């Protein structure tokens, strides 16, 4: 865990021990105190949701929707089954924060979900774990066993009469299952395909019952919000961007890894924490919020602070907080080719624009990268992505279109160069030098 400098982590504080994921360690860190407080002091559902609202905790999965508001959409008094679902289907390229929460602090997720379930009157929860992090699925199952044995989940928790059964469910690695309604379909045992909304999960969710789905980090933040109070959590960050957030920094920095910093921290500070650019090279571009966020050129991102509003003002989105740092050795055409392939491959194939459009975009970018580009291709790409964005059932269409759009917008000259000269603007040997994997041919 890389937690450096004067910044104090919240979610990931005190995880230095050998068994930070065990119940014993979690309780020693003050874990499950908030659940106890709520249940024993008989806090009301409104109080809990009010506290979360005060914290201005925004969804950590990517959309940044205020969590307290989302919780208040749930028909709390609706009789019958209600569900809380945790989305640990962390599949966005560049994102690797939830797995570390699951690895080092799984009980924070369990406590957060139990509190959420209490606040929304749900008695059943699922944690949908990405299929490619099997060992963490096992670790979470072990944590569930511990929590069940200690009576923190199950029937009549802490003698309060509140019941909450929580189960882990692992997927098989499809990116689309991270989309909340596709995730619900997958839990139901169907093919992971997004549902058309409305109706939204809060009214028609898992098995057709009211359901709230939040990201792992969101749930893990809940105990800490209740511990320090919503206002204090908010003050950690900046107005409308409460709290600290984990950033998964990858790419051409000296120390890639997860960094928990307060929202509103300047990007320059984050870059510094990561040990600066690898080999002292110049920063070229940053994708600030996972592969579906538009790319930002160096000069724009250097003026931004790491929070929802600033990044949004800079023309991108904070997304899941996956910061992909690219230095001057990167060929942007090659980079986009890889991204486009990902979205083409992961499109669920349900609706037309995404199914057909992502493949088409990939083929065109692939063609340009391989020296087969045509002058009209840039217009064609812009037209195709315009026909995808905003026309699909779920956000995957947008996620596939934004990178293409932003790469063309900010680095269009590289594409034009590619088309004209049938080769990269960034020479191959420079690319290899930057990759760290290739030996420069003698």
């Amino acid at each position, binding site marked *: 865990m890389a937690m450096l400098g004067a910044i104090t982590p919240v979610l990931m504080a005190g995880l230095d021990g050998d068994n930070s994921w065990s119940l014993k360690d979690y309780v020693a860190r003050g874990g499950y105190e908030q659940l106890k407080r709520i249940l024993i002091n008989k806090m009301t559902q409104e109080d809990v949701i009010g506290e979360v609202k005060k914290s201005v905790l925004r969804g950590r999965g990517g959309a940044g929707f205020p969590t307290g508001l989302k919780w208040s959409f749930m028909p709390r008094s609706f009789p019958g089954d209600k569900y809380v679902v945790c989305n640990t289907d962390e599949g966005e390229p560049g994102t690797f924060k939830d797995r570390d929460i699951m690895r080092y602090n799984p009980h924070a997720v369990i406590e957060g979900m139990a509190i959420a379930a209490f606040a929304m009157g749900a008695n059943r929860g699922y944690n949908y774990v990405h299929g490619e992090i099997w060992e963490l699925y096992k670790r979470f199952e072990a944590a569930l066993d511990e929590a069940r044995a200690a009576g923190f989940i199950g029937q009549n928790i802490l003698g309060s009469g509140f019941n909450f059964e929580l189960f882990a469910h692992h997927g098989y690695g*499809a990116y*689309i299952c991270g989309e909340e309604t596709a995730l619900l379909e997958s839990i139901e045992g169907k*093919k992971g395909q997004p549902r*058309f909304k*409305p109706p939204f999960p809060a009214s028609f969710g898992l098995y057709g019952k009211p359901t709230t789905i939040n990201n792992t980090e969101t749930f893990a933040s809940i105990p800490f919000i209740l511990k320090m109070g919503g206002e204090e959590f908010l003050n950690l960050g900046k107005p409308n961007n409460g709290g600290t957030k984990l950033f998964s920094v990858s790419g051409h920095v000296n120390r890639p890894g997860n960094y928990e910093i307060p929202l509103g921290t300047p990007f320059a500070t984050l870059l510094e924490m990561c040990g600066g650019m690898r080999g002292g090279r110049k920063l070229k571009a940053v994708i600030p919020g996972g592969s579906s966020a538009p790319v930002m050129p160096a000069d724009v991102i250097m003026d931004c602070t790491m929070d929802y509003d600033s990044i949004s003002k800079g023309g991108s989105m904070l997304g899941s907080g996956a910061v992909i740092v690219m230095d001057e050795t990167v060929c942007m055409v090659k980079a986009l080719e890889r991204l486009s392939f990902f979205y*083409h*491959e*992961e*499109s*669920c*194939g*349900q*609706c*037309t*624009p995404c*199914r*057909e*459009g*992502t*493949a*088409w975009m990939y*083929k*065109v970018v692939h*063609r340009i990268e391989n020296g087969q580009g045509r002058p009209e291709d840039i217009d*064609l790409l812009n*037209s195709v992505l*315009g*026909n995808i964005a*905003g*026309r*699909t*059932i779920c956000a995957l269409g947008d996620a596939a279109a934004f990178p293409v759009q932003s790469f063309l917008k900010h680095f269009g000259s590289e594409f034009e160069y590619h088309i004209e000269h049938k080769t990269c603007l960034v020479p191959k040997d420079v690319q290899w030098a930057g990759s760290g994997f290739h030996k420069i041919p003698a």
Partner: protein
Amino acid sequence: MLEIEIDGKKAQVPDGSTVMDAAQQLGVYIPHFCYHKKLSIAANCRMCLVQVEKAPKPLPACATPVTNGMKVFTHSDLAVKAQKGVMEFLLINHPLDCPICDQGGECQLQDMSVGYGPMKSRYTEEKHVVFHKDVGPLISMQEMSRCIHCTRCVRFGQEVAGVMELGMANRNMHSEIMTFVGRTVDSELSGNMIDLCPVGALTSKPFRYTARSWELQRRKSISPHDSVGANLVVQVKHDNVMRVLPRENDAVNECWISDKERFAYQALSSDARLTRPMVKQGGGWREVEWNVALDYVAHGLKDVAREHGGDAVAALAAQSSTVEELYLLGKLMKGLGSGNIDFRPRQSDFGSDFKRAGAPWLGMRLADIKDLDAALVVGSFLRKDHPLIAQRLRQAAKKYTKVSMLSVTADDQLINLHANLSVAPSQLVFALAAVVRAAAEAKGQAVPAGLENVQTCDTSCRIAASLLDGEKRAVFLGNVATQSADATRIHLLALELGRLTGASVGFLGEGANTVGAHVAWALPSGANARTMFEQPRKAYVLMGIEPEFDCANPQLAIAALRQASLVVCMSAFKNDPALEYADVMLPIAPYTETSGTFVNIEGRVQSFNGVVKARGDARPAWKILRVLGNVLNFEGFDYQSSEEVRDAVIGQGVEFVPGLSNDVNDLLLSLPAAPVAALERIADVPIHFADPMARRAPALLQTADARAPMLRASAGTLAALGLVAGEQAKVRQGEGVAQLMVQLDDKVPANCVRVAAAHPTTAMLGAMFGEITVERA
């Protein structure tokens, strides 16, 4: 009610409507592929994107709920740009070879690409190729590259047919529609997927590349295949029926038809048709002119009637005969001094004859099935006997209707059943009596006389309770109940159950014109369908039936026919067994070649015209009967048209026939003596062997439903009989022996074996629900 404005036109729509609903109400066309009014909303084709005021993005009309005051623009720049964008995407991987596509000319994608497609494709990459699949003899999935993934076929299977036989496998552009590894599509409603497919991906295997849609003339008709009377469009080229499609009628068949109705047409232009009148002379058959044949028949019948009395003549007609045919046949028999006419060859108990208060019918309208709170189906192979009624009950059961089955096998009806009880045929009457008793007890009424010794069980109490709950409930008597040796008792018990619970009582009906036959009074005043064979006659007239397949006891029927001096066989098809016992073969016109009237099971009068010229020398049966009447100098055979006959029977412009009633007078409820424990036969009529036309349709005969009958029995019964699944066994009824493969089927009640009727391999056997002996072959 919500107010909405689409393209400047205002409308009031009910709460919960979508923009698409509102547009259809207003007559505004919004292009679409995946949307279908009878299927769930998928919103996956995105063709119906429209602009909605205040919405930043175009929204799919099919899935967007109307909000009050909503303004929608279907032809604005934003909407058209979105629609054109989707069309371009749909076309990039779609083969652009309409001239060689079987769907060409009737393809929604082709039509819409004219309106929304670009002149030239911007897509220069390789097109995606999807491998072809073989899913059986009816649906061709030869050109799956044409699929646009609208999933209508998938949703049809899940939602209407009740079984998900097709699904979309894989993801992204590698998605493809397929069956579960190597399986075929076996639903009895599968052909509707062909209609639903908006492109040339699913096409009709028998019709493929035999005609272009613009060469076809579309003519209205009515299905002769089951009691629903599905409305059809028969498509014709050069006096040949090329294919049969459903004609939408929400009150009757909605927009569906069964595969039998869709594909049986293949028999019409096949070599199996009888096209010339034939007379047996000196043991050999000779083709003759009509006047010769009719003279022969007229003299033959008159001679028998004169020498042996009218009672020596009997007539038996198929339930798919028209009102006109049945009426004239009855009149002819009357002229000959005979009351021996019947149309119920599979029935064995005629106890309610002369006691019925009216023509038996469904007891309600078909369209009202969806509003039922509970329904009990007694004695039916529901899915196979009445695919469209089963479909209606399936939809109803999805909402709130509690559908229960009480039958002789526990076949999967693909309906979410409230209760499912299966008993041996001889026990059916006792099981129903138990429900009656349970209903009486639940209501705190005295147990009806005769049922004092009946034992109720959990299931019978559950069924009774469901029938006592709610506003509208119904008891339906299926074909097994009608054909049972206890048919009258079952009928009386159902009436008693109806009286106790307030449920309506109805019959599902064995044939297309069951009600019409009652209305045409083709009922015996003398010998009925059973007694006319039990006490053999000198002369028989058979109209549209094949006794070896269509009779309750083929052995008995064939024996009687063999000893008769004159057997007149009116048939649309050559029938080899008939050549042995018949003396005259008269080629009659099937429903596509004659005009006539069917009255469906809800009493709906549906007249139709011939759609093609009669094949060869075949003639409409009503005309043949009319001329026979003339030759015999009988009064009242001067009709000039089938309409005249119909008007004489039913009257003009009647929509529903009057006089429908399932009540019975002067009969007392009683139970039979406990049956002797003997091995019982359960004989279903396999769907594609139920009528002479389906029996000769090659594609239908290759389906899973047309597999040769096997001896099916539960594990316990097999063990008791010393049989092993997969081996051969000999079954015997009277003189008849059949050798069949043994199959384990735990849906068959204990001490019963299921041996289907109406099939060449079992035609020599006896009673459908009688005793049977089995031995290892």
